[in-house]
C-alpha cells in the first residue's frame, strides 16, 4: 500500500509527464474501442440484413461479394416445396446513387418478405407493395434524405419510382434503403430470374446438415451456410474485422510508445532520485516494480479516460442525424476486457527498458556525478 502511495505520489509530482503518457493510452483506447465498435457494429448490421432472422443463407459459390451473387429464382421456388424449409425468402441487393446521395442501397424483395412485415410502417399501406407493381417502400432515413412522402416520385439512379410506404427498422442500412418488388429490382439491375441471396427458415433445426447436403448436391453452383458459419467465412466481414483490430492495435501501439517514451524520460530525469531510493534500502527489483507500477497506473488512467471518452463519442456519433442507425454503440465487455489486457501489457512493455535502466543505476556513481 505504501508502495502504491509512492507510485501515485511520483505520478502526481510529474503531472504533465503523467498526463502526456496517459493521453497516449487514452487515444489508443479511444481509437481501439471506437474503430472496433463501429466496424463490428457495421458487420453485425450487415449480418442482420443478410440473415433476416433466418437460420441459413444461400448464395452463389465462390463469389467474394454478395452483390455479384446470382441465385436462380427457380431454385428458390423449388426449394420452397422442401419439407425441411418453413420459409425461403429471396433478396436482390443493388447499389445506385441519387443526385444528392452517392450510395442508395436497393433491396429487391417479395411482398410477403419479413423485412416489411417486421418493420414499423410510418406511412402508407403494406397492401400497395405488390410483387407485380412498380411502387417502392423507403426506409425512414432514405425518405428523409430523398425528401419523399407517400405518393411522391423519387429519383433512384437513372429511373424514378413512386413511393408506396415509409418504414422504420432497427437497421441503419435498411433504414437508408429502397425496397422494390423483386421483379422490378431484377429488371432495374438487369438480373432477370435471379436473387443475390435466399434466406431459409427451417422446420426442424436439427436437420440443417441434411438440407445443406441436399442443396449442395442439387445445386452445385450454390452454397448454403448457417448464419454463424457465414459470418465467420464471408471475406468482406473478415476484412472489416481484421481491419478494425489492426487499426485499433496500431493506435494502441502508438499509445504504448508514448508510455515508453514518458517512462524513459521519467527515469532519465530521476537518476539521482532513484539512487536516493537505493541508498534508503530499495532493492533493484523494488525500483523496477516502482517503474512498472507507475507505468501500469498511467495505463489504467488512460483506460478509464479512454473508455469514458469512447462511450461518450459513440453516443454522440449515434445521435448525429446523418449516422442514425449506422452506429452500433454497444461496447462489448469482451472488447473492454481485451483493451484492459492490452493496456496492462502496454504498461509493462512500455516500462521494460526504463525499468532495466533504473535497475542498473549505481547509487554511488549517480550521487557522485548526477
Amino acid at each position, binding site marked *: *500500500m*505504501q*508502495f502504491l*502511495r*509512492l507510485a501515485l*505520489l511520483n505520478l502526481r*509530482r510529474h503531472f504533465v509527464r503523467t498526463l502526456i503518457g496517459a493521453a497516449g493510452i487514452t487515444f489508443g483506447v479511444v481509437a481501439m474501442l471506437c474503430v472496433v465498435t463501429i466496424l463490428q457494429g457495421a458487420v453485425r448490421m450487415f449480418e442482420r440484413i443478410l440473415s433476416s432472422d433466418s437460420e441459413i443463407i444461400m448464395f452463389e459459390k465462390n463469389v467474394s461479394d454478395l452483390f455479384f451473387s446470382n441465385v436462380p429464382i427457380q431454385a428458390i421456388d423449388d426449394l420452397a416445396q422442401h419439407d425441411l424449409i418453413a420459409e425461403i425468402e429471396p433478396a436482390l441487393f443493388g447499389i445506385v446513387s441519387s443526385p444528392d446521395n452517392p450510395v442508395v442501397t436497393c433491396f429487391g424483395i417479395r411482398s410477403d418478405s419479413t423485412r416489411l412485415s417486421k418493420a414499423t410502417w410510418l406511412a402508407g399501406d403494406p397492401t400497395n407493395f405488390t410483387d407485380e407493381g412498380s411502387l417502392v417502400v423507403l426506409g425512414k432515413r432514405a425518405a428523409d434524405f430523398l425528401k419523399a412522402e407517400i405518393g411522391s416520385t423519387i429519383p433512384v439512379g437513372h429511373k424514378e419510382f413512386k413511393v408506396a410506404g415509409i418504414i422504420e427498422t432497427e437497421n441503419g442500412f435498411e433504414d437508408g434503403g429502397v425496397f422494390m418488388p423483386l421483379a422490378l429490382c431484377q429488371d432495374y439491375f438487369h438480373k432477370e430470374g435471379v436473387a443475390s441471396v435466399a434466406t431459409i427458415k427451417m422446420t426442424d433445426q436439427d436437420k440443417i446438415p441434411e438440407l445443406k447436403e441436399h442443396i449442395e448436391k442439387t445445386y452445385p453452383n450454390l452454397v448454403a451456410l448457417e448464419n454463424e458459419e457465414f459470418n465467420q467465412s464471408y471475406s468482406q466481414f473478415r476484412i472489416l474485422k481484421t481491419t478494425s483490430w489492426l487499426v485499433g492495435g496500431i493506435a494502441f501501439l502508438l499509445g504504448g510508445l508514448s508510455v515508453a517514451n514518458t517512462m524513459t524520460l521519467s527515469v532519465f530525469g530521476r537518476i*539521482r*532520485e532513484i*539512487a*536516493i*531510493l*537505493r*541508498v*534508503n*534500502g*530499495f*532493492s*533493484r527489483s*523494488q525500483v523496477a516494480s516502482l517503474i512498472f507500477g507507475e507505468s501500469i497506473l498511467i495505463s489504467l488512467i488512460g483506460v478509464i479516460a479512454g473508455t469514458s471518452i469512447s462511450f461518450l463519442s459513440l453516443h454522440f456519433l449515434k445521435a448525429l442525424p446523418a449516422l442514425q442507425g449506422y452506429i452500433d454503440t454497444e461496447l462489448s465487455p469482451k472488447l473492454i476486457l481485451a483493451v484492459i489486457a492490452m493496456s496492462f501489457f502496454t504498461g509493462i512493455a512500455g516500462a521494460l527498458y526504463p525499468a532495466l535502466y533504473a535497475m542498473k543505476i*549505481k*547509487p*554511488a556513481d549517480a*550521487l557522485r556525478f548526477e
Partner: protein
Amino acid sequence: MIPIKTSPIEVRQITKSFDHGKIQVLRGVDVSVPRGKLVSVCGPSGCGKSTLLHIIAGIESADQGSVVIEGQSLDSEKNRIEALRHRIGFIFQLHNLIPDLTMEENCLIPTIATGMDRGEALDRFHDLAKKTGLSHRSKNRIQDLSGGERQRTAICRALMNSPSVVVADEPTGALDEKTSWSVFSLLGDLVVSHGVTMIMATHDLELAKNSDRVIQMRDGRIE
C-alpha cells in the same frame, strides 16, 4: 545473538580503485568502531573518506577486503541491501532529499523499502521529528526548508528504520558554523539516546575533537 563485545563496524584491508585501477583511492584500510561510539574520519579532499564511508554503508563495493556490520559481511548485494534497510542509516553532505516531496514523505521512504506498516512508520516519524525539532515542518516541501532543517530531515530519515549504525559523510559540510554545531550536537544526542554507533567524515577538526575518536586519512590510508 550478536556478541556484546563485537564491534558493530569492522573493516579489514579495504582497497578500492576507479578508472580500471588507474586511480587508487583506498589502499588497505582497517577500521573498527566500538558500539555506541562516535568516530570521526578526517583528512584532505580526495583522501578516500567518502569512498570508505560508501563502502562501509554498502552503497559501493570494495575491490578487496571485508566489511562486517553487526556481524554480517557486506560481501553480496543481498546483504548490502539488507544492511541498508535494517542496520545502517546514511547521511550525506548534500542531504540528498527529494525536493518536491514533503519532509514527512522523504522520511517515510526507508520504511517503504522495508514494508513497515504506515501507522507504525508515522509514529516513528513523529517521534523523530519531535526529537529533531521539525514537527512543525513535516508537511513542508524540502525546497521550503532551510539548510539546517534539510540536514536534520536527512538525519531523521536515516534513523527511520532504527539502524544500529549511522554513517555520515560530512553532514555539516554545507552548513554555516552555528548550524553545524547544532546538527553535530543533535547527532551526538541521538548516538547517546538511541545507542547508535556512528562513523562520520568531516573537514571540521573542531567538530571532530568532540567525537569519541578521530581517524586521520591520507592518500587512501589511515595514518
